[in-house]
């Protein structure tokens, strides 16, 4: 078996934001979508930390944004290409527009593959251990937004 085959096999299913995540947060924060295009207000009122946001985007059990997006994170091999290249996304959208696209991208595109990272409503057959949970917590969302804003 070739080395490349071995490497790919060992990698397993990277997309899976995998089965053994840390306990995720419940959706405890209410938010308001404005004009079906933006969530202008911070979920927590606390400023996000772009360094933490970058780490969350890499973490397969948290944001795992790299599963689908090319991002300026050169030390990580294998960026996915299912979604848009996120280079420059901080210039293309306002903070509120970015927040909506992370919290619930289905408001913008009902058919998108991108998960809603902060939503518990309307889901079907969620595994017991994830029921009532969101993929990431409210402060995680803010950290990721802070990071996306640096992608000018």
């Amino acid at each position, binding site marked *: 078996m070739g080395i490349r085959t*071995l490497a790919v096999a060992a990698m*397993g299913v990277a*997309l899976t934001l995998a089965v053994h995540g840390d306990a995720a947060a419940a959706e405890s924060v209410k938010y308001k979508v404005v004009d079906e295009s933006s969530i202008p207000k911070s979920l927590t009122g606390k400023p996000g930390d772009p360094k933490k946001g970058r780490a969350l985007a890499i973490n397969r059990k948290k944001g795992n944004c790299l*599963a689908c997006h090319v991002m300026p994170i050169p030390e990580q091999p*294998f960026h996915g290409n299912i979604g848009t290249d996120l280079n420059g996304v901080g210039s293309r959208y306002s903070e509120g527009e970015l927040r909506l696209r992370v919290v619930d991208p*289905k408001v913008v595109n009902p058919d998108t*593959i991108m998960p809603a990272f902060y939503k518990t409503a309307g889901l079907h*057959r969620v*595994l017991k251990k994830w029921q009532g*949970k969101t993929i990431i917590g409210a402060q995680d969302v803010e950290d990721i937004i802070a990071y996306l804003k640096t992608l000018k």
Partner: protein
Amino acid sequence: MGKRHLGAGLAVGALLAASLAVPAGADDGIRSGYSYMTPETKGMQDDDFQNPGMIWVDDGEKLWNTVDGKAGKACATCHKDAATSMKGVATVYPKYDPKIKKVKNIEWQVNNCRTERMQAKPWKYESGQLLAMTVYIRHQSRGMPMNVSVDGDAIPFFQAGEKFYNQRRGLLDMACKHCHADNAGKNARANLLSQGQTNGFPVYRLKWQKAGSTHRRFRGCNKQVRATPYKAGSDEYMNLELYVAWRGRGLPVETPAVRN
């Protein structure tokens, strides 16, 4: 195909590899998982001496000829030589069975023969025996085009499978179609997404280090999006298996395929 190998006077392995090489796809852009594999993985599948799935073929052949159960019969007692009696079977399964008024797959049919005709115990889903027998039976159709029937009585079951395929599920809220129809050919990190076809099943998967069934794969894909899977052998997966087999219509049966 194969002409140059014929003249080359190489080992039988090379000859087999040439004659079994699988076409990259059928009509309408329908593509086998094979066409997304690396050259190394393709090579493993193409050469019967390297293909680790062939062990399940050998085991299946032994079981085919082994008497089991109170009736004192083997599969071979009724079906004789599998090379003729089982040829083409994989292309038309899953199929509607008027006796049970449901869709059945090969695993189900094997166990039905065991309990009804051999008076033997059914094999557990994903057991070594049921995998080996399924691999062996499907292997008899290798190279033949998939051609399941989705007409007549099969229609509601086909439609249920189609609905399953397109329904979002799990915390990640994705349907089969999001990965295997909308985004086939794209990369999810290191994973190249295929069309999720079943023509090579049961496949030898390098990640599993063994052969695995279609329903095991369905369960894995459900769990990946953090959805509660169904049981292997459930009606839901039978219907889904029919729909997915139809999506792969025209693709050659590859069992035992090798996948990452």
